[in-house]
């Protein structure tokens, strides 16, 4: 078992975070304000940079990134909402031992039927299993979380317990990345916004909320680390991490006050993303067919 990603992997994760940030720049805080071609350009850079295959050799090569390193990458990625099927493709390549630049996704059981993120991405493959391959039947599933672009499928992907755990772990890691970004922005805001003649961060009521957000981000990441270890309750840990991340994001909206509740500030996109991933991860927890 490991509790920290390999130190020499951290600059790699950081670089991935910078990549994501470049495609989140078009709008200040997320996908909806991006230039229309940003996702396609981000995808091209991910493909050409070999990012999608980074986890595939981990079973054989001792120095290849393991799940914890991939979680570190997903956390860096999750700081920015770039609407491309990165995490599912990263795992798809790992599972197949192939670095082909084919976009991949998984359909997961939800109350709204089998949902797959980015189901309408050009050329995307919805992973199947031994049984039949899920097909997209409705796009979009809804417009709740545009950053995930989910579509309704006619079946779920058959994921082994190990694959379900890995997917849950990376979804949780991605969500914690988003929470960290919201926390950082909330702290920055509390240091520049005044009310009643003082910076709001100097009021204990606000400072304590931010301290709790920091605590929950930290414990959420610990839960991801735990999930990456592969215990029997790993998916539960991933769910707990996502729940904490959502708490942090809600806290961030509160710290921002009225502006936090606006569409344009965009904190709601992180919350929508987290809520949607919580639902998908719950689908993984129900367990697909064993394999």
């Amino acid at each position, binding site marked *: 078992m490991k509790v920290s990603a390999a130190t020499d992997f951290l600059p790699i994760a950081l670089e991935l975070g910078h990549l994501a940030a470049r495609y989140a720049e078009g709008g200040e805080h997320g996908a909806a304000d991006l230039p229309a071609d940003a996702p396609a350009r981000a995808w091209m850079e991910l493909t050409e940079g070999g990012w999608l295959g980074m986890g595939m050799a981990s079973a054989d090569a001792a120095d290849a990134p393991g799940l914890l390193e991939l979680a570190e990458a997903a956390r860096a990625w999750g700081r920015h909402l770039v609407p491309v099927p990165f995490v599912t493709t990263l795992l798809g390549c790992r599972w197949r031992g192939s670095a082909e630049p084919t976009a991949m996704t998984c359909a997961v059981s939800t109350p709204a039927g089998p949902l797959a993120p980015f189901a309408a991405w050009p050329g995307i493959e919805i992973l199947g299993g031994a049984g039949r391959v899920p097909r997209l039947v409705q796009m979009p599933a809804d417009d709740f979380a545009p950053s995930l672009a989910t579509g309704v499928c006619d079946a779920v992907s058959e994921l082994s317990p190990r694959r379900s755990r890995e997917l849950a772990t990376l979804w949780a890691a991605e969500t914690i990345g988003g929470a960290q970004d919201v926390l950082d922005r909330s702290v920055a805001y509390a*240091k520049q916004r005044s009310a009643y003649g003082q910076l709001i961060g100097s009021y204990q009521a606000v400072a304590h909320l*931010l*301290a709790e957000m*920091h*605590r929950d981000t930290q414990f959420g990441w610990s839960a991801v680390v*735990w999930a990456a270890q592969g215990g029997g309750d790993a998916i539960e840990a991933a769910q*707990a991490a996502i729940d904490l991340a959502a708490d942090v994001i809600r806290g961030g909206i509160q710290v921002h006050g009225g502006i936090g509740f606006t569409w344009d500030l965009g904190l709601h996109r992180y919350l929508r993303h987290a809520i949607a991933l919580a639902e998908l991860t719950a689908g993984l927890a129900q367990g697909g067919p064993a394999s």
Partner: protein
Amino acid sequence: MMAGAAGIGRIRSFEDPRVEEFRARVAGWLAAHVPAGWADRFSMSEDERTDIRRAWERTLWEGRYTGISWPEKFGGRGLGPIEELIFFQEAGRAHAPEELNVIGKHVAGPSIVINGTDEQRARYLPTILSGEEIWCEGYSEPDAGSDLASVQTIAEPDGDGWYRVTGHKIWTSNAHLADRCWLLARTSRELRRHHNLSMFLLDMHQDGISVRPIRQLTGEAHFNEVFFDGARVSRSDLVGEEHEGWRLATLRGQRAGRQVITGALRRHMLIVEWLDTLSHCVAGRPAASRHRALSTRASMLSWQVARGTDLLARDEEWFPVTSVLQMWWSELMQEITECGLQQNCAEHRAHWRGLHLEALAATIYGGTSQIQRNVVASRVLDLPREVRK
């Protein structure tokens, strides 16, 4: 240096397969040694409980599970924080008694190892490890709680190589049982704040000390007021230099991190035990899901501790990880006891009532929950200070 006494050698990474080997060894030892009587402690008197805890200190020593991470040359086992983590986890699972000599083993002892003279080490470390001498911590005073630098108790030079101590300490846990006090006192009326304090190893068995138990809301009296009226302490029992007490009382760097982690481990041990009891109370009831959620949070605590330990071992930025531990465990402890109470379990009725009241202290001692949040806000998030009028 030789490998650890048990022949295991120090485990430096959580990836080491010896982690599981050590765990099995600890679990086996605990299964054979945890006193059966401890399970009935809620129907015992406080004195009976103290007797069991005192005997347990001795048992731990005999099994070499005291001073797990102390250097071997000072009677420890020379192992590291990873083994300590495992020990506390397994002790919780095995429903082992709580340690009695917390201040001796986790506050005074480690500091004597680093800052003590050879004479002090030889005199005090063996009896701390064996549990023969119980220690208390003389820090808080009526006007110096969170603001520890305001300590008023004074130790004035009194003839050849002695100091005479006058003052009033409060909230002193186990002072009524203690043989020695890890005492923070002023040694100067002139020097400025933070430069006027010294640390002493004071004998509690002497004239000039009176201990008055403070009855807590639980009905028990674990802590005390301690009045010093001319008690004496030898210069040879001064730790470090005169006026160096502030540095010794306010741990910085690695040792502060280790102490916070040890504190969290001790609580994790209790939490594991409480959740085990709670699992019997919620079996087959709707609250079973609540128990699962609480268990997840307990596991997250252990992972946060593991991550903090790992960062500390590599001397990477660990404070943001360790500074949130007490907030987590203290509030978790309280929620577990609330859940326990709500089950109306006939068998554990007294158990949960007792623990519930006791757990109320967890968000107060060692810095209230509010202080904990202030510390994170100022030292981790670097938020602006509160404006005081």
